[in-house]
């Protein structure tokens, strides 16, 4: 049994108005424990709609979502319980901070779970450490922090609920490269420590190459591909066709391969390309 099973999910916007759009069209996939799934697709391909349905924020028109074998709509007493298990970090989550101190803001989710104050304190500490917030920052007002720090506070707010599935909608949008790497490595660490499944919605092929195990490619509300990162990125032409791309290093590797160098086409990170070029040089081909 998979941790998360999505069957025949369908959603239409603007039913009964002149603006009908099929946001999600009969989508099925499953997610296992400890997997990091990259959800990619051009703007308006239905990514955000899917993640909001997974969390019970919008109700699918058709189809079922099973978490741990239980239907999120019918097998839970309250939808809140689903949301504690399937944590969703929205796009630009720093705009949802509201408490006086960072500590209190991170505690908002666990408090809503009805945990004891000891448990809450422990979870806040754990989440803050995981995303790299210092004790000094915990006492500050969230509005005095930098953009990247605020983003980490917001992510900690969800992580403190210890969700079994952590979903992040464009967690690195608008951050500098250092902030991006920081967030992605922390998310990976959360997966390593808890064995939770992670779904990341992203536009950055580079980020996905570095972070994800599998990629779910959406196109106009349908699943275009759902496979290992290397298999997905080998379909360069199809990806370009549907308004996506492959990482820059992959393009370089493909070009080099075309010009007769002994470099494999399935290279997705800078360090892999470095290794490939070095071994190619050692082999006397360069």
């Amino acid at each position, binding site marked *: 049994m998979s941790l998360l099973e999505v069957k025949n999910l369908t959603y239409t916007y603007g039913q009964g108005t*002149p603006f009908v759009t099929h946001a999600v069209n009969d989508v099925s996939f499953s997610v296992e424990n400890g997997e990091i799934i990259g959800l990619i697709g051009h703007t308006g391909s239905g990514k955000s709609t899917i993640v*909001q349905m997974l969390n019970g924020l919008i109700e699918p028109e058709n189809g079922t979502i099973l978490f741990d074998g239980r239907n999120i709509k019918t097998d839970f007493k309250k939808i*809140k319980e689903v*949301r504690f298990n399937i944590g969703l970090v929205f796009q630009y989550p720093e705009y949802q901070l509201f408490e006086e101190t960072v500590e209190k803001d991170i505690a*908002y989710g666990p408090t*809503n779970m009805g945990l004891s104050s000891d448990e809450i304190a422990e979870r806040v500490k754990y989440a803050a450490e995981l995303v790299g917030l210092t004790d000094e920052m915990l006492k500050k007002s969230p509005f005095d922090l930098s953009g990247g720090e605020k983003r980490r506070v917001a992510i900690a707010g969800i992580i403190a609920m210890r969700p079994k599935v952590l979903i992040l909608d464009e967690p690195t949008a608008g951050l500098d490269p250092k902030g991006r790497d920081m967030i992605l490595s922390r998310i990976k660490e959360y997966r390593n420590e808890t064995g939770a499944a992670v779904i990341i919605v992203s536009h950055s092929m580079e980020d996905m190459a570095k972070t994800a195990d599998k990629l779910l490619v959406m196109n106009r509300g349908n699943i275009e591909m759902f496979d290992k990162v290397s298999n997905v990125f080998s379909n360069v032409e199809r990806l370009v066709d549907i308004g996506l791309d492959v990482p820059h290093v992959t393009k370089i590797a493909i070009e080099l391969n075309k010009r007769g160098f002994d470099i494999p086409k399935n290279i997705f990170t800078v360090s892999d390309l470095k290794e490939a070029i070095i071994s190619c040089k050692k082999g006397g081909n360069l």
Partner: protein
Amino acid sequence: MMMSDITFGQFIDTNSFVHKLDPRTKLLVLIVYIVFLFIADNFISIGVLLLLLLAGIICSKIPMIMYLKNIKAILPVVILTSLLNVFYVSGGKVLVDWWIITITSEGIYRALFMALRIILLILSSAVLSYTTSPTSLTGAIESLLKPLKYIGLSNAVHTMAMTMTIALRFIPTLIEETQKIMNAQKARGADLDSGNLIQRVKALLPILIPLLISSVRRAYELAEAMECRCYNGGEGRTKFRVMKYGLCDLLAGVLIIFVCAASIVLNVYYTQLISTVLAIF
């Protein structure tokens, strides 16, 4: 009422004949129409006004369902007003007389009439807001208030129009923002729909605080963006879309006001008309 039911300021561009009319024509005609709506005193004259509105709705090329949504939103008001009329208006034949409740034929007549009047009021305003973009609407208000400059209020008129444009422009944005923040807090287990009054008000804080902060942030950003483009008030400012009064506007305006006036003639000569018709048969 759900957030998504608010259709105010929702401009739907179908590029119809009604869309192309000068916004000033539409605004003035709407004002005249509403005045006549309140002068109309019987079903024949309000019927004429209803036909006029239907003509306008058909000309606007916007599906009827969009208009019906508006009625759905104000249905409680319509029902309440009608009920008050049913119970408080006396006269005519007594239909029900039980305990303290007396329902008369006049009461029923008044109730139906009031319901129709409110519905027409809302629908006619909807025609204007569906067919006129908020910007051209405030442009129309600014243009119509121009005479105020003769009493030294020219800058005030511009400031007011600009404030209204910005406010209207940001209503949908704020609704969307509220929805987003609500979802984000719900994802953290916020409970907005249960608990007693105090708990509910408390539960709103995690939504209101971020909303307030982002509104202030937006205001700063907008002010900066406007200054970057050298905005310095209304003095010497020209318009991108210059409003021109065309023959179409004149004809449409005159025609509509003529039909409205005809409805009033029916109002006055209603009884005479009825007796004439009866005499013919």
